């Protein structure tokens, strides 16, 4: 279980998160929606300790993330797959090496690594791209490699930062299907950050809206669709103010 507990984070004088409290239950997929710049990526990065909170904390299975360091932090990160907004593939490495990097760190045998890389690339429909470099791939393919890199580690949690942003509708639907497939395949808990409502309804069990640094509303897909909160309504219907 992942719990955000009264998380505060500011950059300089600008508060981004101001008392974010939210719970991600085991085996669910929770979607976090919110405007651009509302701090969704910032919230996600706190889960793996890439950012340090000003106050409050994120608790992952009873461990307060900001208090971890060294081996304990490494152990936590091994349970979490992070899919970055712009894929963040290593330019200097082939697709296969990108996917294998996390596995090498675990000291698996090369044969086992090769097998897992093949499996992960097959899961994201990218069989045969092993020897290509990230610069030779389209944006959608790169994002899929990013997913493969995260799931090759068989994590218990997968965090997706805007998996469908910048993709055409069909490729977006492919990404949605992938996220559902990944979850079935790994039985992992998912957190998906997005402002694509169609994707949110497809992959989410529950949806939480981040607004002005805290959670405006959280509920099942049906509850959010039926929300009477004007802020939530405006966002999900995509109406300009």
């Amino acid at each position, binding site marked *: 279980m992942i719990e955000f507990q009264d998380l505060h984070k500011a950059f300089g004088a600008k508060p981004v998160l101001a008392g974010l409290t939210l719970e991600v239950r085991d085996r669910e997929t929770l979607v976090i929606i919110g405007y651009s710049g509302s701090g969704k990526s910032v919230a996600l990065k706190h889960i*793996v300790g890439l950012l340090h909170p000003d106050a409050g904390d994120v608790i992952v299975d009873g461990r307060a993330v900001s208090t971890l360091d060294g081996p304990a932090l490494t152990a936590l*990160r091994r349970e979490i797959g992070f899919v970055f907004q712009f894929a963040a593939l290593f*330019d200097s490495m082939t697709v296969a090496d990108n996917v294998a990097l996390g596995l090498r760190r675990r000291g698996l045998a090369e044969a086992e690594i090769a097998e897992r890389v093949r499996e992960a690339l097959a899961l994201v429909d990218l069989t045969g791209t092993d020897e290509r470099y990230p610069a030779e791939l389209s944006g959608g393919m790169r994002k899929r490699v990013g997913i493969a890199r995260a799931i090759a580690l068989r994590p218990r949690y997968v965090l997706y930062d805007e998996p469908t942003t910048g993709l055409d509708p069909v490729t977006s639907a492919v990404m949605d299907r992938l996220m559902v497939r990944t979850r079935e395949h790994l039985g992992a808990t998912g957190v998906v950050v997005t402002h694509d409502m169609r994707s949110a309804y497809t992959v989410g069990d529950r949806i939480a809206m981040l607004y002005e640094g805290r959670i405006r509303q959280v509920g099942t897909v049906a509850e959010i669709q039926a929300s009477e909160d004007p802020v939530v309504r405006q966002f999900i219907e995509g109406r300009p103010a």
Partner: protein
Amino acid sequence: MIERVGRGTVRAINAVGRFGHFVGDMVRAVPDVATWGRLTIVQMRRVGVDSLPVALFIAAFTGVVLALQASYTFTGTVPLYFVGTLVGKTMMLELGPVLAGLALAGRVGASMAAELGTMKVTEQVDALETLAYDPQSFLVLPRVIAGTAMFPVIVALAILTGIVTGWVASLVLLDLSTQEFIKGLKLFYRFKDTWFGLFKSATFGFTITLVGCVVGLRTRGGAEGVGRSTTQAVVYSAILLLVLDAFWALVLLR
């Protein structure tokens, strides 16, 4: 006014603090040989390939100029074989390390800052961390160790090149014989001349690559930020290099 000075001081102290922190993290990553070992070889090759041609090119011309300048200065009052002394001493003690160092700052330091800066702004550094790698042992140590180890080698070759071109210039342009050139070279030579230059070079290599890494990993703000970091890396490392050069002269040559 006082406020501005105060704020500047605080900023400077913070910068030094962050730098100290960075070096501390780097030292802590040293036992992780499994990660940095193989990558260091890759970086050593890169430092060599990137800087050797420029370093040798500069040294070759410097050797010729030194020989001509020496004879011009001596104007017959000083025996001509002192040309060998001057070329040798100057290349070994100062111009070999410093000119190659400035070339290295421009090429290797800049390219490291640009590379790490790009990795930083495209979240590749974050991605490394989520894969349970320490950027210090994966990115920084291989580069700093490669710079420190390779640079004395590059400088040694540069010094050799400069002396050879100085000798050729003396033969062809100054009517100096090989025996006389070598006599001058040996005159006043001390073993310290060699190790001083090479030791200094190692500290230059360390500084340049470390600055490249620190500045690169601090990059913010997209492509523009990467450009800024690249320039900063060159400027800072060139300044530090010259300060360090004066420092070693003060400490070791007196």
